[in-house]
């Protein structure tokens, strides 16, 4: 029973995060096109893009082995991180003491892999993109980490499953509401959408960190970006707003898919209606949010 549950829920998590993510990306592209009064690409367009890139020639622009390996590392770490999120039931597929730290570590590796690729690619645009991405990551990852630690202090456990269970049964208190709001405001920076796509900035940096990638490597990084979008939406909807949970596995999965769709719709509205921030503005925004989320830790220590 336990093993069966692990295998089934792991399969569902991987399916949603890896296989369904291009569909959600197609949805956001369609929403953006409708706002700009265009027809927009077909919903399956992102699948075509990835398949096409898989079949293209893989140009070796540098002999650095890091450049060759790190795009694949980013896909693997996204898959690893997806196994630590509860979707079908209140416990995630992999549930062990301290998985919250592993989760924070693994989602950081996703960004680090792209930074390594860019730094190894010997292109001035990629260098600028990499340094911007590093600054953005250093300022935005603490918000999510602190919010998760707030949950851990409240629940008295370092398991993601226990945090979600505690949150689901006890309801929100002041500290968790503050942490949830902070994560919601940093979501756009976590998934790298337009007010915060400073490292890829097509108009000024010519896709910055991704400029030298071609063929299967570029497909992997594209796929990672789409999956990361779904993964962070899942983190928000399943850990920080876990409410409509039923006893049935399939109904829970469908509810979580609906929640991601709504969240991605809001996120693509923000993306279509906002300009890109400068790096210093983004850092100021993120550090303010980090201060607020630090407050939530103190509130949690005071049992509020």
């Amino acid at each position, binding site marked *: 029973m336990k093993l069966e549950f692990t295998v089934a829920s792991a399969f569902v998590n991987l399916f949603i995060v890896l296989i369904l993510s291009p569909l959600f990306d197609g949805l956001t592209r369609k929403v953006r096109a409708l706002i700009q009064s265009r027809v*927009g690409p077909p919903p399956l*367009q992102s699948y075509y*893009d990835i*398949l*096409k890139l898989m079949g*293209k020639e893989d140009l070796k622009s540098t002999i650095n082995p890091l450049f060759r390996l790190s795009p694949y590392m980013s896909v693997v770490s996204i898959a690893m991180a997806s196994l630590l999120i509860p979707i079908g039931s209140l416990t995630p597929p992999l549930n062990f003491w301290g998985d919250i730290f592993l989760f924070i570590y693994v989602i950081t590796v996703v960004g680090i892999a792209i930074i390594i690729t860019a730094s190894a690619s010997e292109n001035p645009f990629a260098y600028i993109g990499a340094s911007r991405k590093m600054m953005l990551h250093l300022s935005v990852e603490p918000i999510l980490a602190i919010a998760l630690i707030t949950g851990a202090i409240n629940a008295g456990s370092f398991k993601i499953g226990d945090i979600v269970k505690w949150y689901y049964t006890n309801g929100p208190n002041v500290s968790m509401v503050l942490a949830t709001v902070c994560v919601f405001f940093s979501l756009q920076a976590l998934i790298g959408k337009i007010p915060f796509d400073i490292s890829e900035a*097509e108009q000024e940096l*010519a*896709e910055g960190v991704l400029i030298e*990638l071609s063929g299967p490597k570029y497909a992997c990084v594209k796929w990672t970006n789409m999956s990361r979008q779904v993964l962070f939406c899942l983190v928000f909807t399943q850990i920080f707003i876990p409410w409509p949970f039923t006893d049935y596995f399939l109904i829970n999965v469908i509810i979580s898919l609906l929640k991601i769709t709504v969240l991605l719709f809001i996120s693509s509205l923000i993306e279509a209606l906002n300009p890109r921030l400068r790096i210093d503005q983004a850092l100021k925004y993120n550090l303010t949010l980090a201060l607020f989320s630090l407050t939530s830790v103190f509130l949690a220590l005071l049992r509020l």
Partner: protein
Amino acid sequence: MSLLKKLAQKALKKSIWIFHVNTGACNGCDIELLDIFTPFYDIERFGMKAVSSPRHADALVISGPVTRPTVDFVKAVYDATPEPKIVIALGSCAIAGGIWFDSYNVVGGVDKIIPVNLYIPGCPPRPEAILFGIAQALGISKKKIKPIVAQQIGT
């Protein structure tokens, strides 16, 4: 592996990414090319989009007569594009030099430097012509030209 290649071949027709190269054009063709990304023509419904690096591109759209200083850059851009790729010569100048065909610092058409798959004539070509040309090259729309017979020429 061969299945993935076949799928990639099919997907290629549905997602062509364009990299625009200006080899000394007067910006007429460039503005007409930008028109096809506007909401009115909206080329993204065919899955096409403009990319900012030749490493990501499937199609190189070259506008302008190839001037002598840009010859090396055109060759470099061609080598930097991964296979399979198509090269599109946009406008009269890119096809054969246009009004600068005999100029001292112009090499000539793009096909003197790199192989060209598709010519879109016009000075500048209309956005509809660009859309139609790319669609023909991908096999989205059928060729509408009849084979020339002696009666039509009127000999």
